[in-house]
């Protein structure tokens, strides 16, 4: 029985990690095709990727879109959560439901809807429109995380701050935001990783300047190459780094 459960665990991890492992392994392929057999270890594809102007530009765009859209989503999510958690509004349950609803909508639908809207408004497609799309998909997530974090303890600390003479701006700046530091970081990093990996909206809403997933996709059309594996591995590395950062910043703090 015990051996079986270990086997099960091994199979499970293999199933999850094998594709990524293969991707990373063949990014070091010393040959022209990222398929077995493995012909030897080489960093030339990484050099190739890092020397590629277009890929590096797309990487920069991805960082900018991820950081910018996550920042905006966190700010909007915080304001919505603070308002709904602290004030009795008519129909606040409905407002909360509507705010969270976009989670249930496929990104393809969101992307198409935004594309139609942007065309109708006559706006040019750009990294800005892709960023707006990422705010749309990340806002519900940020709102849900922050709303759940605004508990009674926080409310009474805000009350105490008011009692001691703090203005509303001071209450938010000195009590609410510092107390929410961990959930704010969680919301930011989570939406940054989602934006970093997001393809459909970025594909639909960008044109000349594109994000990294879109650039990789256009490379893919010209056939398989270990170069793509190297680019993919770099993307994966960044995602892992962000998740690890999140663990250290948020979960370590919570354990205290």
């Amino acid at each position: 029985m015990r051996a079986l459960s270990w086997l099960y665990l091994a199979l499970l991890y293999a199933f999850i990690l094998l594709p990524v492992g293969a991707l990373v392994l063949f990014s070091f392929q010393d040959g022209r095709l990222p398929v077995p057999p493995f012909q030897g270890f080489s960093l030339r594809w990484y050099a190739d990727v890092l020397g590629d102007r277009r890929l590096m530009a797309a990487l920069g765009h991805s960082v900018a879109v991820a950081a910018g859209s996550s920042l905006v989503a966190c700010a909007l999510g915080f304001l919505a959560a603070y308002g709904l958690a602290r004030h009795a509004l008519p129909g606040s349950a409905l407002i909360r439901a509507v705010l969270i609803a976009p989670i249930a909508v496929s990104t393809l639908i969101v992307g198409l809807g935004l594309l139609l809207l942007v065309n109708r408004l006559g706006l040019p497609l750009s990294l800005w429109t892709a960023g707006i799309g990422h705010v749309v998909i990340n806002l519900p997530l940020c709102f849900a995380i922050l709303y759940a974090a605004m508990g009674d303890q926080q409310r009474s600390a805000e009350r105490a701050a008011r009692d001691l003479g703090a203005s509303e701006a001071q209450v938010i700046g000195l009590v609410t935001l510092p107390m929410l530091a961990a959930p704010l970081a969680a919301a930011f990093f989570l939406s940054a990783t989602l934006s970093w990996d997001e393809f459909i909206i970025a594909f639909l809403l960008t044109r000349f300047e594109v994000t990294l997933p879109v650039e990789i996709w256009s490379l893919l059309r010209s056939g398989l190459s270990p170069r793509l594996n190297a680019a993919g591995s770099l993307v994966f590395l960044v995602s892992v780094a962000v998740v690890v950062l999140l663990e250290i910043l948020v979960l370590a703090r919570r354990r205290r």
Partner: protein
Amino acid sequence: MTASVTIERVVHRYGPQTVLHGVSLEIGAGEYVVLLGPSGCGKTTLLSILGGFASPAEGRVLIGGRDVTRLPPARRPTTTVFQDYALFPHMTLRDNVAFGLRMAGMGRAERHARADRQLALVGLEHAGAKRPHEVSGGQRQRVALARALAVEPDVLLLDEPLGALDLKLRRAMQDELKAIQRRVGTTFVHVTHDQEEAMAIADRIVVMRAGRIEDEGTPDRIYRRPRTLFAAGFMGEMNRVPARAAGGAVQTPLGTLPVAPPGEGEAVLCLRPEALGRGGPCDLGEARLDGAAFLGTHWRVHLVPERAPDLRLVAQLPPHAAPGERLRLSVDPAEVTVFPAAAEAA
């Protein structure tokens, strides 16, 4: 810093429910007043109205003669010690205590010096650099007190401040609260449902029930001569004996007592367990012992009076001798209170 508080006919409603029915109360400067009552009696709502966290539908609140009814908490000369302490978890204890001074625009060095003095006042002079989660519940309670006192409020409001502490610590903190209040001279308004706590610290107790003030006065006056049957029962254990008014006296199954009746007809005679003993001028006949427990300061006994065998009385007898099987009951009429029976239903 201290000021008087005047509450004038304050009415408060939560939706359709009225929780305060025209409450009026005068609190003198430097007085330690305890609002006492069961949960839902409106005592915490009244405290919130004093602190500015709730706005009354009718009536006024004056502090030091100034109408503060519509002022927000930040602009009132009051601070509150909250039931859950409401410390700022991301700040050191020193920064917690200095928060109000910071809001008042005081510079860092000065407010930290003041905060350290406040922490010393509550016995935490070496813990200024710690954070709230690093200290015990009792210590957090002291920090909350120091934080509220640091801004030198005219009136300090305490919302069940000792409710989360264990019994021993609670009794110790009661003495300390009283001592600190004497030292700083600030008016304290303290909410609790614990009558022992109220008696231990209050200059004056205000007994509340269902949004009204039932009784107010010094602890001994409320305990010994309560104005209502509810106040009598809430302030401690009480024997209730059915009675009727008879001329200028009160007739009970235990005998007729020379006590002025509250009116005509049915009445309830209230006897504290410690008033019921041997040696008072009024004889109540013989009683049979129906169980006794030694509680250190006294024997607590259950008695069946011979004149009314269906009654059960609780009495406190001196600790130095075990009570006998039978004893003769007597009472001092000065320790007896009588209420109309109709009041019990109300």
